[in-house]
């Protein structure tokens, strides 16, 4: 059985600790609230000689991702961390990291995007990069953030995957909240992630490679199609395998999404991030009253588990998708679009509505969630698609 130590850590502290245990060869990073602490703590490990990492304190997030890409192409296990505007500034390089098939793993603390400038949580930053070719794994709490980072190394570096992974968690709500965390020993983390063995390296001077060549219309399409392949077939399978192995070793089972009291659920919420914890509390309350409420917590948003999610929701009468960002497309948030698409092929579909909530760190309360389940129960009873599919929850209109 694995060694267990339970200590109190914030999300940023747990992430920095996981990074210390991963012990990457290179980290390049730039400070940004609320992710700053991760690299700040990590820098103390570097200063104390507790890691082998070359820490590159770059002058911007664009350079952070550029240097991380350079390091990864030189055969180094390479990481960075960021949030919000920092992620937006990296945007160009995110596509290049994925296009070059680099297994970079990056903690990404969710924070609202400007304008107006705001330092608190919503998912607009990571959602804005959802088509960049990065795996996106979300967490409900500090423990899950810690575990996800360790699992993400295995998923990203898997030969059938070879894609970068963004491990996201909610700014302040998780990054700065202290929770008890079961910590794995350094040796067990190292054993779990294994040695990094890149197939190609710029430092292999006897076998020179050209990285970042130009493709014209005779090759570009094939290379982009090749990136799509693991997103279609490989990542979800690998993520399940890694999750199973992690559960066997360390006793915590996650899967690609979590079903909470879904067995006989008639109404359900689909949500990702820390709001899942709030929803679970309300579900337990409703269940005591005999109401068949359930929830699905999305863990992998990229790739999105379309088929698995449709199967899990097929017997539900009404579904509310909670989005902590707005796609500004005139039809709610990005998670809503994915869930509706997933459900479309079912012979009998649940009625699906959307709640955009929590932008810029606005609290989502138990009463908000109670209200959502109240709406779902009326929709289920009436069995009619409501006129208004998208509700902005907790906003002053």
């Amino acid at each position, binding site marked *: 059985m694995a060694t267990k130590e339970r200590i109190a850590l914030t999300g940023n502290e747990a992430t920095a600790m996981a990074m210390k245990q991963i012990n990457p060869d*290179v980290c390049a990073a730039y400070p940004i609230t609320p992710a700053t602490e991760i690299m700040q703590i990590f820098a103390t490990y570097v200063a104390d000689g507790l890691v082998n990492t070359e820490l590159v304190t*770059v002058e911007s997030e*664009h*350079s952070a991702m550029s240097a991380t890409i*350079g390091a990864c*192409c030189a055969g180094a296990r390479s990481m960075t961390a960021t949030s919000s505007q920092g992620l937006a500034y990296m945007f160009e390089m995110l596509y290049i990291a994925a296009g070059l098939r680099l297994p970079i793993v990056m903690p990404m603390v969710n924070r609202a995007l400007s304008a107006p400038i705001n330092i608190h949580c919503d998912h607009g930053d990571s959602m804005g990069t959802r088509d960049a070719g990065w795996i996106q794994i979300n967490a409900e709490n500090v423990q899950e953030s810690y575990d996800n980072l360790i699992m993400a190394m295995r998923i990203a570096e898997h030969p059938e995957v070879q894609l970068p992974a963004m491990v996201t968690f909610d700014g302040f709500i998780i990054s700065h909240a202290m929770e008890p965390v079961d910590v794995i020993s350094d040796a067990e983390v190292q054993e779990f992630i294994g040695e990094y063995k890149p197939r190609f390296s710029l*430092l292999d001077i006897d076998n020179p490679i050209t990285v*970042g*060549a130009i493709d014209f219309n005779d090759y570009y399409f094939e290379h982009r199609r090749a990136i799509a392949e693991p997103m279609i077939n490989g990542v979800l399978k690998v993520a399940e395998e890694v999750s199973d192995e992690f559960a066997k070793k360390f006793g915590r089972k996650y899967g690609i999404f979590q079903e909470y009291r879904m067995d006989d659920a008639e109404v359900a919420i689909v949500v990702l991030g820390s709001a899942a914890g709030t929803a679970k509390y309300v579900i337990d309350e409703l269940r005591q009253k005999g109401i068949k409420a359930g929830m699905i917590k999305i863990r992998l948003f990229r790739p999105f588990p379309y088929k698995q999610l449709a199967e899990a929701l097929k017997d539900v009468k009404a579904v509310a998708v909670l989005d902590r960002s707005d796609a500004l497309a005139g039809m709610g948030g990005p998670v809503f679009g994915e869930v509706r698409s997933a459900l479309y092929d079912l012979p009998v579909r649940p009625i699906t509505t959307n709640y955009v909530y929590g932008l810029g760190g606005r609290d989502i309360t138990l009463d908000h969630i109670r209200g959502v389940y109240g709406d779902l129960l009326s929709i289920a009873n009436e069995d009619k698609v409501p006129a208004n599919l998208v509700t902005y929850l907790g906003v002053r209109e």
Partner: protein
Amino acid sequence: MANLKELSKKGKTLASGHRACAGCTFPIILRQVLAAADTPLVCGSATGCMEVTTTIFPYTSWKTPFIHSAFENAAATISGVEAAYSSLTRQGKYDKEVKFITFGGDGGTYDIGLQSLSGAMERGHNMLYVCYNNEAYMNTGIQRSSATPKGAETTTTPIGKARQGKQQYKKDLTAIMVAHNIPYVAQAAPSHWNDLITKVQKALAVDGPAFINVLMPCRLGWSFQPQYGMQMARDAVNSCYWPLYEVENGVYKINSKPKEKLPIAEFLKKQTKFRHMFKPGNEDKLADLQAEVDRRWEALLKREAMG
């Protein structure tokens, strides 16, 4: 110093078959830089002419390992490669001696990549950054950059009725790099190959970052006949428009002092981008540019005299 024939056989040079324009001078610069190195190299490049003409998939002209990732980040990208090298060497996972060189055009160096370059130089990576400076955005079709000289016609500073050519003097990037207090900074030109190669060798020998700004006559953007590339570079040096100098640990040395300064008009008149300046009524513009070249040259002489 070996002679040119010997040098052409030295090092992992650029393979033929690349798609640079006939008469383009960056392949000459690149071959001189690559021939200068005695240790294995890992090279990088910003997006630009050099990268798009030498790496057309599934081919490559590079015999050294090579990385391009984007336009504004050649310095940051190679700094990551160098960081990986340092880390893996320190951990005992790698045992070869390798040097790192990255290239960028003036667009990728003077303008969009300046922050990335400044950051990498300040951090002290063991790397050489070579700017192949053709004084405009040539790859996208001759738009002005901050390296474009005053008066030059480009596609974004056309010759119109109200305005003719670029309105501003060019930025002195070499001086900005000197201000970073890095061990080695130089200006060079491919016409003076002996000087250029020596500078690359000095740059690779220092412990820390080095920067070389190489003037690159562009036959398309400057518009001259393909055989005149080296002549253009020589004229630029002999007119003191492009002084060859180096700053080694803060000490200035001018490497070429023309006995007779070639009038700037002699250099400009061979390029169609300045043809409007030779029309009657524009004498003051020509004089203005000559005065600016003289001012900068005098300042450099004074700076050298200070040690």
